[in-house]
């Protein structure tokens, strides 16, 4: 149903609350709290992607029967996640990423967080998954424009000034800080992550922030046309729009 979209987005999107949790589950348990020697100066406590009820684009058409059964039916979460990964599902034009960082040292400073493009390609145009009830685009707080030659974080008010040029985040052990980052593109398909520069005891270290499972975040520009379009089915899963049903044999 509607919720399915969210599941697709990055295998971690909420529906009722509009928030998806990723990557935190493995951190449960006592090991999560131990001050481990050799541990990074900050821990990425969790990463949330807030793409629910926003459009998603797939990079390949869905034709195999098993994959159609996932797209049109009621797969479980692991099947959905694997499907999205196989088709490199990406949010379109904008995605909100919330990162909670937790300090692992008596005192430390996060001097910089910057996006790093790992791969780029023309926008995804194979399939568009568009929910029946459109969600609201997330509010922009800190923006990462991936189309810039050197992407960086900036505030919405002043996109030309790097966010971390004037500010840093100081944390003590056990203290948590939340960053809400909106990544945007209007030109291409990107796979990316973030790199945080953390200074403690006079040393600078880099901490990588990824989507759950160590996977890259994915975002694509909107394509002028898609080879297939699916909307939320009132029953479950996805289905072609009604107009496509009537125009059988024609592209949507």
């Amino acid at each position, binding site marked *: *149903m509607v919720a399915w979209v969210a599941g697709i987005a990055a295998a971690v999107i909420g529906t009722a609350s509009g928030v998806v*949790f990723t990557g935190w589950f493995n951190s449960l348990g006592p090991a999560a709290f131990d001050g481990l020697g050799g541990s990074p100066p900050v821990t990425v406590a969790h990463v949330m992607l807030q793409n629910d009820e926003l459009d998603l684009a797939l990079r390949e058409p869905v034709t195999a029967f098993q994959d159609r059964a996932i797209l049109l039916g009621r797969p479980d979460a692991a099947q959905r996640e694997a499907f999205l990964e196989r088709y490199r599902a990406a949010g379109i034009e904008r995605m909100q990423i919330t990162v909670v960082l937790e300090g692992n040292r008596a005192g430390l400073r996060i001097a910089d967080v910057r996006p790093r493009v790992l791969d780029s390609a023309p926008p995804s145009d194979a399939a568009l998954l568009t929910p029946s009830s459109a969600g609201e685009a997330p509010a922009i707080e800190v923006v990462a424009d991936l189309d810039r030659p050197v992407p960086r974080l900036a505030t919405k008010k002043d996109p030309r000034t790097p966010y971390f040029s004037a500010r840093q985040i100081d944390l003590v052990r056990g*203290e948590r800080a939340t960053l809400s980052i909106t990544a945007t593109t209007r030109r291409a398909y990107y796979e990316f992550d973030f790199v945080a520069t953390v200074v403690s005891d006079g040393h600078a270290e880099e901490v990588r922030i990824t989507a759950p499972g160590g996977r890259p975040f994915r975002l694509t520009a909107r394509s002028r046309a898609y080879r297939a379009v699916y909307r939320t089915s009132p029953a479950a899963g996805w289905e072609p729009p009604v107009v496509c049903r009537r125009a059988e044999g024609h592209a949507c």
Partner: protein
Amino acid sequence: MLSARGVAASLAAALAVCLAPASDSADATRRAVGWEAVWSVTLTQGSDRLWRDPVGEYAAEVSQGVVALGLGRGPVVVIDAGTGRIRSRMRPEGSGNVRRIWVTGDTLVVQRGAAPSGFGAPAYLAAYDLPTAAPLWVTYVAGDEEFAEVTPRGVAIARPSRLDLYDLRRGTATGGVPVRPGCATRVAAAGAAVAVLSGCPGEAPRLSAIDPATGRARWQRVLPYTTPPGDRAGKGMETAVQGTADGSVLVRVNQTSLLYAPDGRPLPGVLSPAPEARVVTTGRVLAHSFAPASPDGRPEAAVTQAFDPGGRGLLRTRRTGASGPLFADGRTFVAMDVMGWTQGLTWPLPAHLTSVDAVTGETADLPLPVPHAMAELVGAGGGLAFVLDPVPETLGGDGPAARVTAYRLMREERPRAAPLGAVEASRWPDACRLLTAADLAPLGGGHRAFPRTPAPRLPRPLGAADTTGTASATGTTGTSGTARMPGRAGAAAPGHVACDWIPPADDGTVVFVSVEWAAPSAREARELFAAETARLKADAGVRVLPSGRPDVLLHGLGTPAGTQFHALVVAGPVVARLMTRSEAAVRLLGPRLRDNLRAATAGGAP
């Protein structure tokens, strides 16, 4: 009611661990095998419609050997927890729906009124003498902007600039604590103290435990949580606080849990980004339960963590099922469980109660003889769990009657519990065999069956990740009969309880089938079907379609994307559901599903 239940379930957290008791060894020991109704009391309403939906408009408290229950605008009914006898009725002092009830010592306090349920009615607290039901005092609160808490040492009301304190028995003001204006103040009873959480914009939240008799702080802490610019700092943090009977405190800041011992010591910080979390203490163990929003909103990853009271070390963390309030009774935690979802509805059809032994961790997850969507767990005490539901026969009338039933966990000597707590796995029909190619031919043919798992804690069906063949005239090839797969604790689980039929073209009609329940007897299945049918017919969001058959209920359910059409059928001891986006298809296939289910269950349970 349907949607409200769905939302409640998706947000709530719970206890539930495995399909079978945790200590599922080969030894024959006394295992929990079912919930037995000990007493049941029915509460009717007159012509003045005191409530429309009992499980949507109630407040309850179980304490001091009583179940105190308020429904809508009705009185608070005090029921003897051991016998079900109604001891007294406390009449409202004014209009307005009941919102909360506290019972402490010989005093019962009820909060009524204020939006949304009592829109327009004044909000107030009224206290009564528990043994005699005599009114003691009344004081007013400003709707949803002020928060009241009752403890054995007094009453606290958080108002915009002050925490006002009152004597529990007399209602007289005993003092107050200043509150900084413009800061969000939340309060919760924590043992004899009141936990006060104060969140001011741009500052770290502060937590203190106030003695409501003196106004003095027993302890105070600044919480280790900062919100740097660029996130929610400008909008204020979302904060909440809960307390437990022993004085422990759970603070929620922007969906993260922070736990504190009764003396203010921080407990091991478990990261739990979740829309909702709950905490309760029993048997000197603290249980912290939370359900993160899962990929599709289903409660797939509810977690319960038990902390040892002495060192407050983490005893165990369990990935669990699902839903609603969490209660403590002696050394047991009790919650209602949701196994999973199918077609947007909870699965399976009957409600399940989960009971967890705080000391041993032994878990029992067992069904009640009522549909999940109708039942609400309202409390636990004295070895009983108290469940509220509407009386099915009165639904759709002038005003449904409500029923409170006390259930006790039955134990028997047996080596292994049945999966899902009812019948052997082999008694569950294979959902992928409940429609044939001939049945589906009018939809264009060429459908292929894919088994599905509606419950994340059930093992994935064999072949679910792969194609399972093409529907044939004799059934669905490629799927075995009811597969018996090992459950988590080694108990056999039912095989293909749900199945999707996928058409050859994307614009064909997809058909979904699920086995909703395999009851011990046909009579129990019919009663469950009848109760669910009564519920659906009374639901304003459901459009019932005539089927002309008493064992087939066809209905449409509105969704943001359009209408989904369901057929709920019963045959023998089994209830099954079919769902599709096409009204014509559900009219065609509903009776076929019933016929095939009859054939599949023929010769089974009487």
